[in-house]
Every structure is written in structure tokens, then in C-alpha cells.
């Protein structure tokens, strides 16, 4: 059996690996979105108390400042010592919390790019701060955030392959299984896998750009 037959035969495994990567990606982006948005809102509009702001800043700096592989090891081996956590769970947690740190800063700069006059006008019309954020600031910030968020989406797709190091059977590890079982063919197998990552990446990017275009405000320069 040559490598192409093997690839054809084992393609369902690659697809399964891709599925695992996609679930990991979706979960980590969701965690990152929820926590990142919360951090952003507290940093911008929450109480200025250092007791609150300082830990958030520390969290954000630490998760942006440590390599993800180290975080994966810490979360997997560190947590599994005290608490039963699967490699998949550890990967979601480590990567989701890291994405939260990045996303919080994407959102923060998007919110900050909305001119201060918008909030002032909303408040001057009698809107509460929360209503102003919800109806006036958020819709504008969201438009500014889609571009940088697309970058985050792209890097996280690629980073899911690192979950391989703690044993998550995602696309890269499935590829490795095929290589091991056929003793070689590294280039061919990884070329197929690279193509799969690339297609996923481009598809996601195209959808996000389409979304960005759909939300674009007429007459408003980007």
C-alpha cells in the first residue's frame, strides 16, 4: 500500500482530528470571548480600585507573557495532580484563559477607539452608562474589533496543534499516527494536514471578513 492509499484509508482519522481541533478552537474562543469581554469592561468601566484592577492586569500580563506550551504543561500536569482533568480539558482551559488575555486587549482597544464624544452624547441624552455601553459604544467597538479578532482566530487555529504535546488527539497527532504507522512519508502527510489547516483558516477568515463588510457603516472610512 503506498502512502496515498494509506492517506485515503486513514482520511476519516484526519477528519476526526480536524473535528477535535475545531471543537477545541470553538471552546477556547468562547471562553476567551466571555472572560476577555468581562475583563475589558471591568478595566474600562469598572471600579478603579487597585484591588480589582491589579489582579486583572497581572492575569493578562502573565497569560500573554508565558509560552503556551509551558501553560499546557502546567495546566495538564499541574492540575491533574490535584484534580482529574483530561488532556482535552486542560488544553481548553489553558488556551481559553490565554485567549481571554489577548481578547481582553483586542476589545479594550476597540472600545477605546470609539470617540469619547459618543459616550458623552449618549449620557447627555439621559442614557445610563450601561445603556450607553450597550446601545452606542458596543456596536461601534464590535465593528472595530472584528479585524483584530480575525487575527486572534487565525493564530488560535494554528495553536490548537500544540495541544498535541499533552496528548490531545487532534489533527497534528492523527497525522503523527499515520507517519509512525507507515514509517516515513513526513512530507506528504504533513502537506495534507497543512492544507487542511489552511482551508479551515481561510474559510474562517472569509466568513469573518464577510461579517465585517456586512456591518460596515456607509460613508464611514475604515
Amino acid at each position, binding site marked *: 500500500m503506498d502512502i496515498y492509499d494509506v492517506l485515503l484509508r486513514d482520511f476519516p482519522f484526519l477528519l476526526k482530528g480536524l473535528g477535535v481541533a475545531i471543537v477545541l478552537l470553538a471552546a477556547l474562543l468562547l471562553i476567551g470571548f466571555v472572560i476577555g469581554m468581562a475583563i475589558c469592561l471591568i478595566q474600562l468601566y469598572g471600579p478603579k480600585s487597585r484591588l480589582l484592577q491589579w489582579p486583572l492586569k497581572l492575569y493578562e500580563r502573565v497569560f500573554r507573557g508565558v509560552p503556551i506550551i509551558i501553560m499546557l504543561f502546567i495546566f495538564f500536569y499541574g492540575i491533574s495532580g490535584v484534580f482529574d482533568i483530561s488532556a482535552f480539558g486542560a488544553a481548553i482551559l489553558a488556551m481559553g484563559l490565554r485567549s481571554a488575555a489577548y481578547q481582553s486587549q483586542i476589545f479594550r482597544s476597540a472600545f477605546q477607539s470609539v470617540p469619547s*464624544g459618543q459616550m458623552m*452624547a449618549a449620557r447627555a441624552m*439621559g442614557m445610563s452608562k450601561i445603556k450607553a455601553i450597550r*446601545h*452606542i459604544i458596543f*456596536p*461601534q467597538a464590535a465593528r472595530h474589533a472584528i479585524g483584530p479578532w480575525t487575527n486572534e482566530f487565525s493564530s488560535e487555529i494554528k495553536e490548537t496543534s500544540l495541544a498535541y504535546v499533552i496528548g490531545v488527539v487532534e489533527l497534528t497527532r492523527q497525522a503523527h499516527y499515520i507517519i509512525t504507522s507507515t514509517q516515513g512519508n513526513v512530507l506528504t502527510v504533513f502537506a495534507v494536514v497543512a492544507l487542511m489547516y489552511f482551508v479551515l483558516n481561510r474559510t474562517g477568515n472569509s466568513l469573518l471578513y464577510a461579517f465585517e463588510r456586512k456591518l460596515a457603516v*456607509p*460613508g464611514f472610512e475604515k
Partner: protein
Amino acid sequence: MADNLILDVQDVKKAYDGLQVLKGIGFGLRKGETKVLIGPSGSGKSTLLRCINYLTVPDAGRIYLNGEEVLDKNIDNMRARMGFVFQDFNLFTHLTVLDNVRICQIKVSGVDKDTATQRALRELERVGLGDKAAAYPAELSGGQQQRVSIARALAMDPDVLLFDEPTSALDPELTGEVVRVMQQLAAEGMTMVVVTHEMSFARQAADEIIFMEKGHIVEQGTPDILFNSAANERTKAFLNVIAEHG
């Protein structure tokens, strides 16, 4: 407080970093009156206007709207009853003209969508922009944007309208259309406080002109008195400079 004042501003003080910008300013406004605040830049006119609706919180003094004191705890309600027109319009850039004029009716006053739409279209008609309802702010000229922002304020059915240098950010050829709308409002009996350098508007539409300098009211009176027989040398000097350059 004095009787039947819509707006009563009493002894307002404000300092920034030890610099006293407002040194105890008071004035009142009856229904239908237009008062124009003039004075050199840095005299505290805009700060005073912003203190009225707490966009800038005053250090001291009291503000009453229809006899009710403006306070931190009722500020959203009070602001909804005081329209504010900004120098740089501050239209909500992501919303159409129509949505700009109705969003606060719906989200602040709780007006239903149909009523808000009717009201918005009527106010847009009033400022001469009935045909721009579907446009976005970035598609309009500065003068049109400012007229939309006036319509946005009017749609809240305010007791008083506050104008903060509404024509200062406009190209000279666009100030006319905004000034005309303001003159029309004054003639229709809208109660307004206007900070402006448009002396033609002050002369024609003001019931009273208040001349401020260095955080004080230097002189106040009807346009006729201030323009023709100002008592204070500072007022005369300021009006002369404006007359030469304005």
C-alpha cells in the same frame, strides 16, 4: 428659587487643578427665553453649560429644572429633559439619521417605536432634513449633521435646549443653515441657552446676552443694551474685537 423659572442656575463653582474656572455663576431662564453666553475663550462659558447637565460636575452651586434640583441620583432623568447640542455634533456614527433621532426616545423615554418614528420624522422635517432619514452621519455635511443633532435633542421634548458652540466646528458657509434653525426655534418659543460666537444670532434671537470673563459674569442685558451701550469696558472691548474679526 424664583418663580416660574424653567432653569435656575445658582452660584455654580468649578475648579480644575486649583484653577477656578467658574467663580460663582448664577442666572435664570423663563419658558420661551433664549439666553446667549458670550466671552473670550477660557472664560468658562462651555464649562458653565456642561455644569448645567452635570457633564461636568460642579464643585458647588445648585441647578434647578422646573423647580426640581439636578442631582447625581436623578441625573439621567434630568438630562433627558435638557437637550444638549455639541460643538462637534457627536451623532451616533453606526446609526442612520432616523435611528439617531429615535434611539433615545425608545431606550430612555420608553416611547414605542412607531410613535418615536413619527416624532423623529417630524423633527427632521423641522430642521429641513426629512429626506435624509435613511442616511448615515458620515454621509452628511457638517451643517446637516448639526441639524440632525438638534432634531435628536428636540425629539426628547426637552424643557430646555443647551447649545455648546454649535457652529464653531463648521465651515463658514455651513454656519448659516444651523443658525437659521436655531433662530426658528427661538422664534417658536423654545427655551434655550446658547454658547456661541455668532453675534448675528445673539443680536437677533437672544432675550438676554450674558458676557462672561475669567469665570465671572461681567455684564448681562438685552442685545440692544450690550451691543449699543455696554457699561463695562471689557464688554465693549470684546464686542469690538468680535465685530472686527467676526
